[in-house]
Structure formats: C-alpha cells, structure tokens
C-alpha cells in the first residue's frame, strides 16, 4: 500500500512540476533588450533537465512499486555493469556539452562590447543611483573618488577636458534610446551594488575601487524599474530607480534638459554666492 502511494506521489511531483511550469502565471517579463539569447538558453536547459527530472521520477516510481518488498523474493545480484555505466557517462557528457556550448556563445557576446556602444556611467551609492553621459566628444571624463563632494558629486577631474561637457543626471531616472547599444560603466562610492533591470536580463556587480561594465541594446520602448541586485546594507531593498527606453525624439528632448559638468559647477558657485549674500543680510 505504502509503495503504491509513494509511487503515485513521485509521479504526481513530476507531473505537477510540469503543469506548474506551463500554467502558473509566474513567468519572466517580456525581454526589452538584445539578450533574448539568455532566455533561449534557459529554455533549452529547461527541456533537457526537465526530461531528465521526469524520467528519474518515473523510473523511481516504477521501481518502488514493481520491486516492493516480498518476504520470499531475493533482489537481483548485479553489483556492476561496466557497459551500462560507460554509456550513461558519455550520454550525460554529451547532454552537458549541449547545454554548455550555446551558453558560452551567448556569454561571448555578453562580454564583447560593440565599438559603437554609448558609454553611460552608473554611479551607485547607499542607497540610490546617479548617471553621467558623455558630451559631444563621446568620452567620459576621468574621475577620482577623492574629489567627490557636493559640488562635484561624480568626482570628475577638472583638469580633464573630456569631463567638462559630461552630462550629469543627479536623479535616479535614466533614459535610453531604442536600438542604440549602451555600455554601462559601473562605479560605486561605498559598497557592492548591482545594476539590474529585470527586462534587460543583464547584470553586473558594482565594486568600489574599480569600474565594471556590461552592455545591452534596448529593443522596445517602455518604463522599467531598476533594482539593486547585490546586497548593500539595510536600505538594499529600497535602492531602486527607473529607466525609460525612448524613441529618438523623446530621448533627444530629455538629453537637451540635462546640464553639463561645466554648467553644474557654474550654477553651484552662483548658489554659493547667493547663500553667502543671504547669510550676510
């Protein structure tokens, strides 16, 4: 009786898992970047591993029922079967290679940034985001963490010409242009963070003391949430931002509203004079 129940439970687990997989409402978001290949690799892995899981559950269910204990029966004496073990080994090896190969191909794309990618700096700190875009020269100015203060939130080296025209986004909302590859250059002021947009699929930790990166190409417009995906202290769960993927016009409009580092400095010094005046009055 117990054998019968247990065998059924095993079958139920296998079948139930498959049903849940296909009919549960929880599934990934529609991809919004060029990394559909990651989804495909997951699906391929699903098929291969899913078949293995169901097969093993069914096999066990059959054995538990078919070879249930009988007092007068003896088990088969078969301590080894070299041939069977050999075949199982190479079949497994082939299956594993079939999973690995496409995975490595997609990974190769992921770590090879296209030359025309726009560089955007993502500055993470406990617990918010800021961004910096290159000016017309297309180059981000050099930075030094020792220079970071309220007047220079990114720590841009003022002697570096490339830095003066950088656009500073002192806000956690970022805009991207559709179908234009971007390379996120990731910087942190304090601890580890991770710049993650579920719809983009990509991910990379942000490590203080170094610049990490990854690239994507947005393929549909929309408004997405940015999540920090590397635990960064008590406010980790609240470290969120937004990213909008725009058509060219909207993107240009947004760009036009951003101010350069040069203007930012000028504005700051003006405000400083104002406050000093106010204080004097």
């Amino acid at each position, binding site marked *: 009786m117990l054998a019968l129940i*247990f065998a059924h*439970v095993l079958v139920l*687990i296998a079948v139930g898992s498959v049903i*849940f997989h296909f009919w549960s*409402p929880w*599934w*990934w*978001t529609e991809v919004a970047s060029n*990394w559909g*290949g990651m989804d495909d*690799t*997951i699906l391929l892995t699903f098929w291969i*591993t899913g078949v293995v899981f169901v097969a*093993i559950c069914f*096999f*066990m269910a059959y*054995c*538990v029922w078919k*070879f249930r*204990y009988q007092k007068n029966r*003896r*088990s*088969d004496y*078969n*301590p*080894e*079967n070299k041939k069977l*073990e050999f075949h*199982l*080994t190479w079949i*497994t*090896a082939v299956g*594993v*290679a079939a*999973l*690995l190969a496409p995975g490595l191909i997609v990974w190769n794309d992921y*770590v090879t940034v296209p030359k025309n990618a726009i560089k955007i700096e993502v500055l993470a700190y406990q617990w918010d985001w800021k961004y910096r875009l290159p000016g017309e020269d297309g180059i981000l100015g050099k930075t030094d*963490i*020792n220079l970071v203060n309220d007047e220079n939130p990114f720590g841009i080296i003022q002697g570096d010409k490339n830095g003066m025209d950088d656009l500073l986004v002192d806000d956690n909302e970022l805009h991207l242009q559709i179908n234009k590859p971007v390379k996120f250059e*990731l910087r942190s002021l*304090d*601890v*580890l963070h*991770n710049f993650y947009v*579920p*719809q983009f699929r*990509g*991910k*990379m930790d942000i*490590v*203080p*003391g170094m610049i990490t990166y990854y690239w994507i190409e947005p393929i549909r417009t929309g*408004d997405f*949430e940015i*999540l920090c*995906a590397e*635990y960064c*202290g*008590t406010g*980790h769960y609240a470290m969120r931002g937004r990213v909008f993927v725009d058509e060219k016009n909207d993107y240009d409009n947004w760009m036009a509203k951003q101010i350069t580092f040069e203007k930012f400095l000028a504005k700051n010094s003006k405000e400083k004079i104002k406050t000093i005046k106010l204080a004097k009055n």
Partner: protein
Amino acid sequence: MHDDNEYKIEAKSDNVSDVGTFESVTTTDIDYLPPKEIPDQDLYHSHSWWTTYVFSQDAKYIGIQYAFTAIGTGLLGLILSWLMRMQIAFPGLGLLEPAAYYQFVTMHGMIMVVYLLTALFLGGFGNLLIPLMCGSRDMAFPYVNMLSYWMFLIAVIVLLASFFVPGGPTGAGWTLYPPQAITAGTAGSNAGITLMLISLVLFVAGFTMGGLNYIVTTLQYRTQGMTLMRLPLTVWGIFIATVLAMFAFPALLVGCIMMTLDNVLGTSFFMPTIISMGEKLGTEGGSPILFQHLFWFFGHPEVYIVALPAFGIVSDLISIHSRKTIFGYRMMVWAIVGIGALSFFVWAHHMYVSGMSPWFGYFFATTTLIIAVPTAIKVYNWILTLWKGNIQLTLPMLFALAFVVTFVNGGLTGIFLGNVTVDVPLSDTYFVVAHFHMVMGIAPILVIFGAIYHWFPLITGRMLDEGMGRIHFWVTFIGSYLIYFPMHYQGFVGVPRRYFEIYDSPYMSVSGLSLNAFITVAALIVGATQLLFLYNLIFSARAGKKAEKNPWKANSLEWLTPEMPPGHGNFGKELPKVYRWAYDFGVPGAKEDYIPQTTPPSAVVGSKVEKS
C-alpha cells in the same frame, strides 16, 4: 591507498568466483587475512561522571554532543527563518525592522550551513560512525577529539553572544562581503561582525582537530581485513569531505582574520577608498573581490563538505533497505573522490557577475558543468540500485528516496546557474535561493533524518515511533518541495533575493505576494513538523519500542558490536575481522539475504560472492 586500489582492481578482474575455485583449498586458506600492522589502541578509561558524559573522550559521546549542539543551534536557525518568511509574506504586520530582517537572514544562513550541517554531518555522524564502521575502538586522538567539541561549543556561544552586543549580530548576509559587512550601512558592523569572525575562526580551529581525527582514523585504524575498498560509502563520504574541509577552511580562516584586521585595526585588505554615508574612510587600495575569492574557495567545497557525507549515507541507506548490493561501488567511490577534487576548481561560478574578469566565465562554466557528470553517475547508481531490488519502504528508505528526488531537482537547477549565460539573469534572484535550499538545505537534511531514523536504534537501543515518523516524513518531503519549487519562478520573474520588502513592482506582471504568502504558510507547517520529530526523539529514547540487534539486517560493523548500544571500546575483547565489503545483499546461494562483513568465506561456501 593507491597500491591498495590497484590490488583491488586486479582482484576484481577475475570477477565472480564460484565454488569450484575453492575446491582444493582448505578452510583456513580462504579465510586468510593479512596480519595487523598497527597495535591495538590504548584507550582512555573514564572514572567519573564528568569524564564519561561531559568531558568525554569517547567518539560516540562526542558525536552525540556535537549532534545536540548542532540541532539546538539549528532550531534557532529555523525560528529565524519563520520570522523572515512572516515578514516577506505579510509585510503589513510590521513584524521586523529592515535591520533585524537582515540580521536574521545572515544568522539563519550561517547557522544552517556551518553550525548545523557541517557540524552534524562530520562532528556528529563522523564521530559516531567512523570508528564503528572502520572497526576501531575509538578515534586516533581521543583527547584532541574532545577538545574539538569544546572548541565548537565555544564557537557557538560566541556566535550567540553576538545577539546581545550593542548593534546586535551582523546583518551582512551569510557571505559577509566587505566593504558592506564592516561599514556603517549594515547592522552589526562593529561588534556583531567581529564576533561572527571570531566564532568562525574558533569553529575552524575546532573543526581541524576533529578533522585530523577522522582522516587518521580512517587511514590508520581500520580493523584487520578492512581495506579501503571494503569501507561503507558513508565512511568514504565523510572521509573525503573531511579532506576537502582541511583544504577549504584555511581560506575562510585567512579571510576572517584579514577582515577582522580591516575592521579592528583599519587595515585595507578588502577596503578600497570609499565614501560611506557621506564620510570618507581612511582605507585605500584593498580589493573587495579578493575576499569573495577566499570566501568561495572555501564556500564551494563547503557545499560538498555537506553533500559528500549525504551521498555516502544515502548510498548505504538505499542499498540496505532495497536489500540489494549498491550498484557500481567502485564508480561511487571514484565519483566521490572526483567530485571532491573538482570542487576546488569551480569556486568562481559564484562570482560570474562579481566584477572579476569576465573571461574567467568560460573556465568556471566548463569546470562546473564537468562536475555534473560524476554527480549524475551517483544519481544513476542510486536509482539503478532500486532496479530489481526488494524495496522496503522503511522510514530511512523513504527519506533516502525523497533525498534523491530533491537532490535531482536541486542539482538540475544547478546546471542552470553553472552555465554562465543563464546565471546572468538568474543570479541574485530567488532562483538562487530556491536552488541552494533544495540542493544543500533540504536534500542533506532529508539524509540526516533518514540517518537518524536508521541509526537511532544503535544509539539508544530503541526504535523511533513509526506513526510520528510517517507524518514527519510526508509533511517534510512534500512541504519543502512546495516551498522551494515555486520559489524558482519568483526568480524567473526577477525578484531579487535579500529584499526586506518586495512591493508589487511594475516588473511583476502577476503579483508575487500571493505566492509569497503560500510559501510562508508551507514553511511554517514544515517547521512545526520538526517539533514533532524532536518530540519523537525524546519520547522514543525513553519509551520507544525496544530494537532487536541489527534491526535492519545490515552488514556493516557498527551493527555487529557485542552490545547494542555499543559500549566503551566498541567491540568487546577482540576487534572484528573483515572478510568482505558491506554490500553483500541477495547473494545467490547464501542462506540469508545479507552476509555481514565479519562472515568468513568458509561460512558461506556455497555462495557466489563478488571479490572485494
């Protein structure tokens, strides 16, 4: 060891010998065993209650001390998980503050991995079973073995003390990544983390004392005739796991020491120049990723430190309760050794998106998927052992089979995460949480339960209650599957792990809250059932059904002691002599369906026996 195996393989080549071969030899010849190489151990004999039960040097007692301490600490881990799950599923209750939530996450993780699983498998089962299964009177160095336990206990006390220091225990996550672990944005970044690091250092020190014992005893104190290739797989699993631990724990140790220095003396091993909460710290030039390499160089073998003993034990349970020879014993041994060796070459698969050079990804994805092959072989051999067996669905067997299902599920999701591309979208999401709970939380715990049901009669002389055991089994097996299987899908949606509150964010097309509530309710039920199990342990130890000798009709030496539970020195006047491996079940021609390891060939002349 090498020579020994060579010899075995040669002996194997003439495969199964039948009666005919022995016709010309006399009985004494077939029962010949090579002489003992090491004199009998000089045992320490305790004279007082204190030295017998408290400062005991008897490995069996030390094993039980380890087990009690580990389970007690594990109970705390369980309660912490309840509180966390309540917070995630019902944020409206306002049960926890974010800081407390993260402190509980951290302590739950560290307690379960190190202070429960590692301590229970190696300290608990290792101490209980290695001497008994190898046929020795005790561990090689009983005094050091005793110190090992007390060191472990101090480590646990220091860990628990961190709940009572200003700022509370560390909330850095069990991986303790700097700079976050030791900067102001994390709870317990001063006293809490320092105590955690000290506790780990003490644990490693204590564990090394125990580990030397397990290794030396397995290599040197096996009884006459007990070749390495006749050892039960349980001993193989624990032995290789201990070897791994000896190589892996030093990495954790130096990581802990360096981080303590960073925190206390202001060194910069792991600390670059940073601005924490608007204030520049005086650190410069350190590398946070260095810590991750050290941590995972320990952390990945750690997975196998827990898994290999589970593999070994479950192989024995399946074989004994199927009344069938384990399929492919030698392959099983080599798979354990192979997995153990490979486990040192895969650590950075925890770091694909850590910011290390992305080119490492190719190497570590390849090594990681290679390790899937010996692991798969083990699974095949377990289920092939069932084939044409005579399967008794006893409680240990139910748990063992549940382990196989859970482990296969968790192992297969490991292939997702090991394949570097697939890891990118899934890393740091609930998919990872579901995966590792399935494969190194639930699966080993199921083996621990199976092992406790199996060896309880050996320890107490009584059987655990079957009715309570059945309830415990079904709720734990089905319940934990219901907790962790759906959790993978939260990961697909993209829900990051370690979020105090998830909110109904726009990226979730269907609310994750109902699923969270379901998982939490299941977790509460499964957790509560463990209390029933603890009650069963206490109840059955006092009033359970008396066990007959060798109640499962097993072959290995621990059941063949003159008294059960075994007394001091384990084997009475004379150590047993071993003539065969532990897997002679259903041997054609033999009278019974099992032949204990001590049965000489002359006693079963008519049977076809695998030369081992």
